[in-house]
């Protein structure tokens, strides 16, 4: 009798561990595959209530911050540069290229704790209406500790960084695959 009970407990334990564990892994994978990624930039999956498979629905029920609806815009985050190296406050970066067409875009730098990066100049980003552009419409933002000519974003952090690129009223929906969409490149131009 005692042995029977132990065996039953073992069956239940295996069921719970394997069931919950595989569900969490599947949701995590689903979150990644639901995300739209262009180079180092990743957009959160569009979290529409009723559509999609159950895994995506479950994955979409997580998230933080104030949400951005698909009819409002799309927010991309980058935690690594175009070469795949994690963004580091001790390195200088050039974020350059073209932006997809949108009514407005903003570029913002955050520290490793999801907060705006603190710096003496009080500048934490650029937006499409103030940025200096080249003749062909492309732009380059220099994220660097030392002063740089042009669109200079001072860095006063020695930790990880996250770049955000938000496209408001973007011309493309998040459901459309976007490898050919122009998103700026993030290139490390030197580390201290």
């Amino acid at each position, binding site marked *: 009798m005692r042995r029977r009970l132990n*065996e039953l407990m*073992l*069956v*239940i*334990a*295996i*069921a*719970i*561990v*394997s*069931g*919950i564990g*595989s*569900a969490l892994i*599947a*949701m995590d994978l689903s979150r990644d595959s639901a995300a739209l990624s262009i180079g180092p930039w990743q957009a959160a999956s*569009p*979290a*529409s*209530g009723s559509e999609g498979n*159950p*895994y995506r*629905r*479950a994955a*979409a*029920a*997580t*998230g*933080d*911050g*104030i*949400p*951005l*609806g*698909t*009819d*409002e*815009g799309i*927010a991309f*985050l980058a935690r690594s540069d175009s070469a795949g190296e994690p963004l580091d406050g001790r390195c200088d970066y050039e974020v350059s290229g073209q932006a997809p067409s949108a*009514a*407005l875009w*903003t570029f*913002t730098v*955050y520290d490793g704790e*999801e*907060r*705006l990066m603190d710096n003496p100049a*009080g500048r*934490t*980003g650029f*937006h499409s*209406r*103030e940025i200096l552009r080249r003749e062909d419409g492309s732009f380059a933002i220099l994220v660097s500790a030392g002063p740089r000519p042009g669109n200079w974003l001072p860095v006063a952090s020695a930790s990880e960084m*996250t770049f*955000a690129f*938000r496209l*408001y*009223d973007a011309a493309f929906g998040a459901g459309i695959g976007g490898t050919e969409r122009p998103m700026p490149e993030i290139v490390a131009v030197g580390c201290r």
Partner: protein
Amino acid sequence: MRRLGAIIVAGLLGGVVVHILAVLAYPALGGRDLWSELEAYGPPSAFALVPQPTDGGESPSYLDPNMIHAICRTDLAESPHRVGLDLNVPFWSLGVFDRRGRSVYGLNSTTAGESGLDLLLIASRDLEALRTAPPDVVDEVVLVDLPADPVVVVLRAFVPDPTLAPTVAAEVRAAECASAGDLEPAIVTPDPLPGPAE
């Protein structure tokens, strides 16, 4: 040894059932609760400004510093809600999210085509009653048909330059998000009964 194999197989079969139940139940049980997350910013049925990171104190993670954000929590099961705004900024956007933070409606200044906007967020079941006895106000507002659930309205107003922040904040503060109580009599009693209106 054979017995151990049977136990593992039975456990894994049970795991399949647990897996399916866990994935289906997660959106309803776990996940985020946007409504409660935003409770600290102000009472329901009114726009509340979300503090900017530069104001000091706690602000939500990954907030766009170029935008002034305001949120309004309303329950459409109680009554329809009216959202009115007039923002003289280069860009604004409005999103409506369910309790769990999933988008149910959204638009922006480009799609709206003008600076001002008057919306009536209304539950589908109230909309039916409204159609049978439309009050005059229906002609002036854009009807947004939503489930009869709590919703979170998020308003973003673009601040092109930090010096304009106080002006934009004042315009956002003037935005209206209120229970459309004046519509209720018409909705609750659609029958055109003789006598004075309630």
